[in-house]
């Protein structure tokens, strides 16, 4: 696609869309939203970029190696966060029982492990969207 207007509008909007997605992921525990919704917003920003600017430029933004890495270690990150509870002598994926400081209610750092787990899930969901899209579009070309 070589539409001038589309490219300029995308260049203006996509950074903000991506920042908004990251905001939704990071504030999943203090605002409406969450890691699944935010991850999809981040992934869709990449997908929109690739559909507008073409496959080659899209692949230059996020390489196959990067998606494969995030794809694999995103799930492992969740398990590692669960193991924090085990190392503190509490059940797997324990949060308050493991004695983790929950912080002030409503602050970004509140919730102990929940924010970190949410970050992992969000990155995971966005990489799933990107990988599925790239796998299908590279098959066609």
């Amino acid at each position: 696609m070589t539409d001038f207007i589309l490219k300029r509008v995308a260049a203006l909007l996509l950074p903000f869309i991506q920042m908004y997605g990251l905001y939704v992921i990071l504030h999943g525990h203090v605002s409406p939203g969450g890691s699944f919704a935010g991850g999809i917003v981040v992934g869709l920003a990449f997908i929109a970029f690739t559909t507008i600017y073409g496959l080659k430029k899209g692949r230059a933004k996020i390489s196959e190696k990067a998606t494969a890495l995030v794809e694999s270690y995103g799930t492992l990150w969740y398990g590692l966060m669960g193991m924090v509870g085990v190392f503190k002598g509490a059940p797997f994926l324990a949060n308050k029982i493991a004695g983790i400081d929950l912080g002030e209610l409503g602050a970004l750092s509140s919730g102990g492990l929940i924010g970190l787990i949410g970050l992992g899930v969000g990155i995971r969901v966005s990489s799933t969207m990107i990988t599925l899209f790239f796998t299908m579009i590279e098959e066609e070309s």
Partner: protein
Amino acid sequence: MRLRTLPMLLILLLVAYVVVVAVTELPPYGIAGNPVHNQVSQRYIESAWEETGVLNMITAVVLDYRAYDTMFETIVLFTAVLAVIITLKTTEREGDGK
């Protein structure tokens, strides 16, 4: 009409009747005394904020009370991507004759 069609139709109608009767026996939607409003949701509503420290109650349920469920949900995503890659990804190997 084959011989097996009539008994099958009867069984189908019987099952449909049972389903319709079961649906009419359901409690009306949104009444406070319904069986779904038990002590589990009561516990979440009353003490989710002090047990998890987050304001968003949905996040508290998804990432704390039901953390196992969400973990395997991410593994389901992983498996879906794996299946798509296995079926769709074509890599050209040497000596393939392509």
